[in-house]
């Protein structure tokens, strides 16, 4: 059995957990907040289980993800852990955002913040949430494109119409409107394929199209919209994919907030 461990600095807990998922890592993430301790168990990037002193399974995951600025330690212990959490990590993160938001609204959010139910402090999810609420789709896409090396173009597109509802380009020669409309056809064809295969029409996370000049990455934002990114072939595909995934909650939030 391999055993190693290390502390994590300079990255938010949510981003770190998404990286663990993205990299399909098998590990235990130990989380410490004041005198509270918790563990999140990952098997090949899948969140299998979570534990705190008083909670286990999904409830523990909700509690841990809601802790503000915790200390994180990653342990590669290689021990398989039985699965007690069926809900995907991303869904749990979004649930936490929603719960914090609802708690904030319920308490009137006097200063625009919600309190962590466990320690009375403002939660990290709330901080993220405030950032999201202050941002419109164009602003979020501007932030997004700044992070993507070899960025060419990006859009949020309606699946049904193929119309972009927001976007930004760096290369005027790249026809983003055609990329948006045509990728909608890819998304629809992909849905039909998955449906026929019995894999669930809406189970797609992302789609990659490699061409001679660009990579086109498509990431679903619920059933009605998707996020498409074009990057130059000199770009790092894995990094671009990870950045898209990182920004997905914010974009989802911006879209669903206005439903």
């Amino acid at each position, binding site marked *: 059995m391999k055993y190693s461990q290390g502390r994590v600095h300079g990255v938010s807990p949510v981003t770190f957990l998404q990286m663990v998922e993205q990299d399909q890592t098998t590990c235990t993430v130990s989380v410490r907040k004041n005198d509270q301790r918790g563990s999140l168990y990952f098997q090949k990037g899948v969140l299998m289980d979570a534990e705190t002193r008083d909670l286990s399974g999904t409830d523990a995951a909700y509690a841990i993800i809601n802790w503000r600025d915790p200390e994180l330690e990653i342990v590669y212990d290689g021990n398989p852990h039985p699965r007690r959490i069926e809900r995907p990590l991303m869904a749990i993160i979004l649930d936490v955002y929603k719960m914090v938001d609802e708690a904030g609204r319920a308490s009137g959010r006097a200063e625009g913040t919600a309190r962590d139910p466990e320690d009375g402090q403002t939660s990290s999810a709330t901080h993220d949430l405030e950032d999201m609420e202050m941002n*419109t789709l164009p602003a979020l896409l501007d932030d997004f494109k700044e992070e993507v090396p070899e960025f060419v173009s990006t859009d949020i597109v309606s699946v049904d*119409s*193929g*119309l972009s509802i*927001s976007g930004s380009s760096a290369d005027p020669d790249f026809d983003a409107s055609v990329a948006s*409309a045509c990728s909608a056809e890819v998304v629809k064809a992909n849905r039909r394929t998955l449906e026929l295969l019995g894999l669930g029409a809406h189970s797609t996370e992302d789609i990659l199209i490699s061409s001679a000049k660009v990579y086109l990455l498509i990431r679903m934002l619920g059933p009605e*919209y998707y996020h498409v990114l074009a990057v130059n072939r000199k770009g790092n595909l894995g990094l671009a994919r990870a950045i898209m995934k990182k920004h997905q909650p914010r974009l989802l939030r911006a879209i669903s907030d*206005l*439903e």
Partner: protein
Amino acid sequence: MHGFIFSEIQKYVEAKFDRKTWFAILQDAGLAEKSYENFLDYTDAEAVAIVTTASNMTGTPAGEILEDFGIFLGGDLMKVYRPVIDSNWTTIDFLANVESTIHHIVRTRNRSARPPALVCERRADDEVLITYTSPRKMCALARGITKGVAAHYREAITIAEDTCMLRGDPSCQLRVRRSATA
């Protein structure tokens, strides 16, 4: 004209009648076997041929068909662009801001869509004046879309068309007033 509009016309005809009627209209319009894709651009003449044929087949004036289609289209456009529409807006707010928000996005990110240039002047809290000068002269469609937007907000509006290009005026002016909650 953007393929999305043709897809919407087809959806509209199939919702009002059935798929058979859609194919019959295409046949009579000289567009048999034609299919429309959202990612392609088509001539305005094809849209005119479809509407004219539908008018002849149903005995309904083309303007009425265009307006009714506009109501249908307006509802779908509100669904598509919902995430970029301020949730606090009313029908009048939306119309007053449509150029700077929706049409701006359409022009920059969906280049073949070419929405008509509108001048929307807010006259009062509950009134906006829309000046339409498109050479397509489809003010009936603009009227319908405006009604579709009001239906989305569940608001009652009145539209007075003070001038109209179809009557020889240089522009169509639609005075839209919110009357009461529907």
